[in-house]
């Protein structure tokens, strides 16, 4: 049986060799094609703008090089699937691609990403990146595989007029989960047509439902930053009361009708309605969203809404009972990487550095409302003045959490999403969903890598 696997691998390897050989002949006649893969949707065009500009600049300075832009229209999950499939053959594998920090370590293990250690060593701009950004592009082996485009934090975004109409004092400063429920109840009672407080859940929104949902709760429970993954022992946490209580909170929000309807929550494109219609029309009180929120409303954004600056406000998500550090945030971010099967790794890295140089980084970070990771960009006046919320969301870096940077993380993330979906659809109680999650985690990482925090 094992020989068959080898045969399969050999066939694949032969295929990639042929592919590489095919590409190499391009170089001989002085031409090369660089394939660049990224996400582009109606609501997310910032990266397309960046790459279109860099393509023009790069082709002008590199004779015989053609940059082929291959945008993928789809959700983050669709993109991850398509990207992984494209890496299965050198024919389709991109040279430069947009990579989620969440999938990075698993993709490194799968052999999709080129080790960039020797490349960044000779790159002057590398010193501009802060340490957290450098770490975001590292694999399990500590080598650098990708370069950060920017990071983000998450907070509650709320519409002040809805809160005022419910008799809640603005600026609103929730101290605990109970404060959220109280505010939601007040909005619900005073404005029947308004969704009081949304918190994403379920598998349809993918990783977003964890980052803009469950983790905001879990990381604010008793175990805090170690609630999902115990950093001291490098083990995954199971059986914690915080996990069940977080699910119970989600259960309450959805059951009481404070959040979106379950049907809406299970629509993967619902976030476009949240930004595009619900907030501008005042039919939503609050939602948990990323620091990039203003990018949709600013001039040139996907859902332009000039009044957002005075209609909206942001505040940190509270911890369960108001315990230290008082607020919770989650950080993620996306990177650019070079394909391990690229026939032109030097050119590909050069393209990457052009896309991430000072001017292009600044333009991208401002258009996409990202939190800058380059020191020179962060210090630029146009960055701090890009929108009225830059200061507030950047401050959240002090209470922010990062997801466990391990290769099995993306599988665990799916299990968390399944647990929240089971709770909001009512197919499992919070306690049952937590037990199912515990069993799934143990099956993924093995009993030795699990710690029970009863």
């Amino acid at each position, binding site marked *: 049986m094992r020989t068959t696997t080898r045969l399969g691998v050999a066939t694949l390897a032969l295929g990639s060799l042929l592919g590489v050989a095919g590409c190499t002949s391009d170089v001989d006649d002085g031409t090369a094609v660089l394939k660049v893969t990224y996400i582009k949707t109606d609501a997310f065009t910032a990266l397309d703008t960046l790459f279109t500009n860099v393509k023009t600049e790069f082709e002008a300075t590199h004779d015989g090089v053609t940059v082929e832009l291959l945008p993928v229209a789809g959700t983050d999950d669709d993109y991850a699937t398509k990207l992984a499939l494209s890496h299965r053959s050198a024919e389709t594998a991109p040279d430069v691609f947009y990579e989620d920090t969440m999938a990075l370590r*698993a993709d490194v293990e799968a052999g999709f990403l080129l080790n960039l250690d020797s490349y960044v060593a000779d790159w002057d701009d590398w010193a501009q990146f802060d340490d957290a950004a450098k770490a975001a592009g590292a694999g399990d082996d500590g080598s650098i595989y990708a370069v950060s485009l920017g990071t983000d934090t998450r907070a509650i975004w709320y519409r002040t007029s809805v809160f005022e109409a419910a008799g809640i004092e603005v600026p609103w400063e929730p101290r605990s989960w109970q404060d959220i429920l109280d505010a939601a109840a007040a909005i619900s009672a005073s404005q029947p047509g308004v969704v009081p407080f949304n918190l994403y859940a379920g598998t349809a929104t993918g990783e977003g439902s964890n980052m803009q949902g469950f983790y905001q709760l879990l990381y604010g429970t008793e175990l805090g930053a170690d609630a999902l993954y115990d950093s001291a022992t490098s083990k995954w946490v199971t059986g914690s009361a915080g996990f069940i209580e977080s699910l119970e909170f989600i259960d309450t929000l959805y059951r009481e009708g404070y959040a979106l309807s379950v049907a809406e929550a299970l629509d993967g494109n619902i976030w476009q309605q949240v930004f595009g219609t619900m907030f501008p029309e005042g039919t939503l009180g609050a939602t948990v969203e990323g620091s990039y929120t203003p990018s949709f409303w600013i001039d040139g954004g996907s859902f332009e809404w000039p009044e957002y600056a005075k209609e909206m406000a942001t505040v940190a998500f509270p911890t369960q009972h108001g315990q230290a550090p008082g607020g919770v945030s989650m950080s993620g971010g996306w990177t650019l990487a070079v394909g391990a099967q690229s026939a032109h790794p030097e050119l590909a890295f050069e393209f990457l550095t052009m896309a991430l140089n000072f001017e292009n980084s600044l333009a991208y970070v401002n258009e996409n409302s990202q939190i800058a990771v380059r020191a020179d960009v962060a210090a630029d006046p146009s960055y701090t003045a890009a929108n009225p919320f830059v200061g507030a969301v950047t401050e959240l870096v002090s209470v922010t959490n990062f997801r466990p940077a391990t290769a099995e993380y*993306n599988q665990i993330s799916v299990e968390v999403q399944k647990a929240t979906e089971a709770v909001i659809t009512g197919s499992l109680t919070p306690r049952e969903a937590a037990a199912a999650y515990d069993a799934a985690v143990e099956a993924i990482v093995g009993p030795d890598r699990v710690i029970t925090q009863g």
Partner: protein
Amino acid sequence: MRTLPLVPAVILMAVFLLGPIIWSLVGSLTNAALTGRAAADPQWVGLANYAALLADPVFPKSVGLTVVFTLVSAVLAQTFLGLGLAVAMTRASAGLGAVVATVVVAAWILPELVAAFVAYAFFSQDGTLNQLLGVLGLEGPNWLFSFPMIAVIFANIWRGTAFSMMIYQAALNEVPQEITEAAMLDGANGAKRLVYVTLPMIRQTITTTLMLITLQTLSVFTLIWVMTAGGPGNDSATLPIYAFTEAFRFGNIGYGTAIATVMLAVGAVFSVVYIRALRVPRERAA
């Protein structure tokens, strides 16, 4: 030498049919994944994927949903509706027959994706159905969410009936006029003629059509994916949807192929049953 003309067909079958089947079988015995270490270096896990399937609560549910979906929307509804329409149209006036045929066939000629969007637009919260109900003063539920299986079953009946109808129409036209007339002279009424004369004569067509629509319906993917994506939860996740979700949404290629292999087996069992049913009358004739 007499088998020589078959060689190209056999080679095509081997490459495009046998190849993927073997690939699926081999894949289901590994822990192949979309990403991570198992993507670079899949390991043999033997029957572990199948053992996990048996312990997975979603699997029996998915099998049940597939059986219900196939039985209700294909075997029962499409056959009865298709045959009924075909019989009715042999008696209807040419004008009415043409109108009915156009309406029914319209659903069939639409590309699957378009048909799926049409069905989605019909059943969704603010869709055509609920707007029609609204005219009557009724407030319809969110069909795709509250009754996902009913919605996809109706959509599949709407889309698939034309196929059986057309085949039965062709078969009914082949039934010799003299035989029905003879039965009529013997005093058989309409229903008796249908049951004792017409149906036995088109028996082979019925079996073939049943086999085709069963296999087609077992593998329906686009329609359900567009309408409900298998949700809410797994409430409309038939085997094709479940296999796709596991393999490409959650990245467990090995597990997904194990589900696909089970699906292959189910399809094979159905085929064998139907093929045997087809063979019996020939043996008698010989």
